[in-house]
């Protein structure tokens, strides 16, 4: 603070801008290695076909194979598999990434 004031006076600059509030706009996105869910083909940043609201209400889950899906999509998939639970993309055994 002090140094700045000194700096100011040396430059004989007096204009000072004080920002009271900055309202920014941002969009959130999932940190995922793909754009669309491999199961429902809907964008990750949207939601699965059964959901209305994206984000918290329709989260993504990652498998240990590093593939990710809408949680609702992969659960549906896994429930439909009788024998073995595999990742629909790479056919490895599906395990949730911790």
């Amino acid at each position, binding site marked *: 603070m002090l140094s700045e004031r000194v700096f100011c006076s040396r430059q004989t600059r007096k204009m000072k801008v004080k920002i009271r509030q*900055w*309202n*920014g706009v*941002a969009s*959130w996105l*999932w*940190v995922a290695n793909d754009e669309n869910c491999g199961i429902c083909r809907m964008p990750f940043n*949207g939601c699965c076909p059964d959901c209305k609201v994206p984000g918290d209400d329709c989260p993504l889950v990652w498998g240990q194979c590093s593939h990710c899906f809408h949680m609702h999509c992969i659960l549906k998939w896994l429930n439909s598999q009788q024998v073995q639970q595999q990742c629909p993309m790479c056919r490895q055994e599906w395990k949730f990434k911790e």
Partner: protein
Amino acid sequence: MEEMVIETHPTDVSGSATQPGVADAWETVSAALVSAECVVSEQSLSDSLALLCSQGLSQLLGSWLLETLQMRLSSSVVPEFWAGLNQPENELEEKGRAWVLLTAFRTLLHRLEPFLGGLDRLGLWQNEGRGDLCGPGPKGLQDRAFTIIRALLLFSPSPVLQERVLEFYSRTFSVYMNQEGEAEDGAEVPDGPEGGVCPGCGVLTQQCWCQEALEQLQELSHILSKLQLLEWVSSEAVTSILHKLIEQRMEQHCRGEYERSFLLEFQKWLEMVLGWLSKVFASEVHTDSLAPAPSAPSPSGVQAGQSASSVLKQWRCHMHQFFCRIYVNMRIEELFSIIRDFPESKAAIEDLKFCLERTNQRQQLLTSLKSAFESRLLHPGVHTSDILTVYISAIKALRELDPSMVILQVACQPIRKYLRTREDTVRQIVAGLTGDAEGCTDLASELSRGDPVTLEMQDSDEEGNDPEDWTPDPTDAVPDKMGSKHRSSDIISLLVSIYGSKDIFIDEYRAVLADRLLHQLNYNTAREIRNVELLKLRFGESHMHYCEVMLKDMADSRRINSNIREEESRLSEEEQPPLSLSAIILSSEFWPPLKEEKLELPPLVCQAMEAYTHRYEKLKAMRTLSWKLHLGSVTLDVELEDRTLTNLTVSPIHAAIILHFQEKSSWTLEELSMKLGAPKELVHRKLALWQQHGVLREEAGGRYYVVETGSSKEKMERGAMLIDSDEERDSNTTTQSEQREEKLQLFWAYIQAMLTNLDSMTLERIHSMLRMFVATGPVVTEMDVNELEAFLQRKVREHQLLVSAGVYRLPKSN
């Protein structure tokens, strides 16, 4: 046979008679027939008659009498009548002219009376069957006589007669109305500044001949009805008088006056006019009943009375018809203004509705209204919101006028067609719906009206309406697939259907909503939530889903912000962020595409944003933020040497510019543009705001300086300068056409894939395929063939597509 005899002169007949007594007898009888007073004794007359009968000559009497009448008419009576009428030229005053008219008819009657008497007598003889006389009787003979009189007298009537009659009737009319309606109309009849003029007859009071005129009218009517000329002479004059007077009265009372109903008033007035008409036409009732014909008193008297009242009845109908027609004519002319003033002009619309049902002028109304719309409304000089306002009024007014909505549908077709060509129509409608438009609050209130009509109306067919209630469409209805059921009068559905698709409106509403939300500083969405709820009622839940997510984003952002704030407040003094940053965090898939603009913000701001992102990532696992640097708003103070500007709310780029000037007091446009990573034109435009505030000034060489000390005088100048402060409320969302373009681009991928597989396709085929494949996504609105064709044509021009004989194919690559 008889006709042949008529040709020869009656004296020849008597001359060639064998018995000398026959000639005398003929003389006696014919004299008795044509002279008014009977000189011969009844006895000798009947003797003569008997003699004639015995000679078989009595059959000729009727023919002879009519022949004589005809001769007399053409040789003397008719010329005398016309001469009498024309005689004083135009020298006389009105009163005199009336007198001449009456005298002419008097003479006419006087000349013809003997014949009429003779005919009567002969007819009676025939009736009595005296001396085997037979014939049509007095009625038939008289009818023939009157036909001859009419034919000869009015064969070539000079215009003078009509003129005089018209003048006389007009005068008696005004006299009559003046006497009858003294109490009511007294004030309205212009008395004129020179007092002492009788309002009835228009001359000085001491010379007033009102009473005389009425008496003359009575006599004239009497004469005319006696000669059965009444209808022939008066109808035309009366018709034109009624027309003129109704028109006049309407011009005076009703034109431009829409807020009052005139029907009753006119009804009363017309009743009064009817009183005058009864004087003109019904005089025969009085005379006949007062002095009934001695021979056949009851039948002819009753008949005359009946005919008079039926004549009056007829005239009453005529008069109402005139009234309705004239009223409708006038209102049709004024309909545009009436519509413009609608809720106030309801009375006029109701009157018009009443009258229009009685005249067959719907077509005229439609044509006139359509052309009024076209000439007064649908041109580039009228603002879209004004067109919409008039359209809304028209909907309201015309659904009042014609509950079948056919007029509405047909007349407003041009408006709808025209609105479709205006780019900002949708935006205006949406603005109206959300209550943002200045002028038209109708839409907003219409939206919040209870009992909304859902825009899905397809299932209303099955509504168990009573078949008895069904009424056929008016004949001028536009035949379309939609029955009268679907002819909606709901303002919002009509407006929305201008484009034939709800999606366009919802997209536009989303854009408007996005704009409004992004300009919010305090996450206050109460009003938007209300609007979305109302729209949901109309458009259905599913269509408004995206908007709901947008609103939810706002609520979530607020929560996240307060969360992050709380976290920040726990930090120590040193770690406090240098900038108070809050954010609106969007679910990008659900918001309309936002404008992309490149902008680099000062490091201070970037750091703050990074910190914010960091905190967000901690809050929401596996999610991050992508900042739209150019969006949002900044509240700041600018302290200068001698003044401080406080609480300015500007856009981020404005803030970035002024922050750069804090570092260095002068910049060139190039430097700034480099620093901001934004195009020069944009920066130049944005600099204008600060110039306007008097913070910066531009000097020669394109350098901008901070104005540290601003004299008040300078400020004044700046105030006057008022640089065009660019689109301050610039829309953040991409425009409709840009979005459209993007969508078409999406189609291009499909088209390419189709053509690769199927080699070549016609336009229709491509269109139907696209509809099939791409019908699901929310972004796809209906695309018509023409649009697709235009798009494909462009691709052809860009050599990305080949077309031959209506078949499209991809160019052979490589």
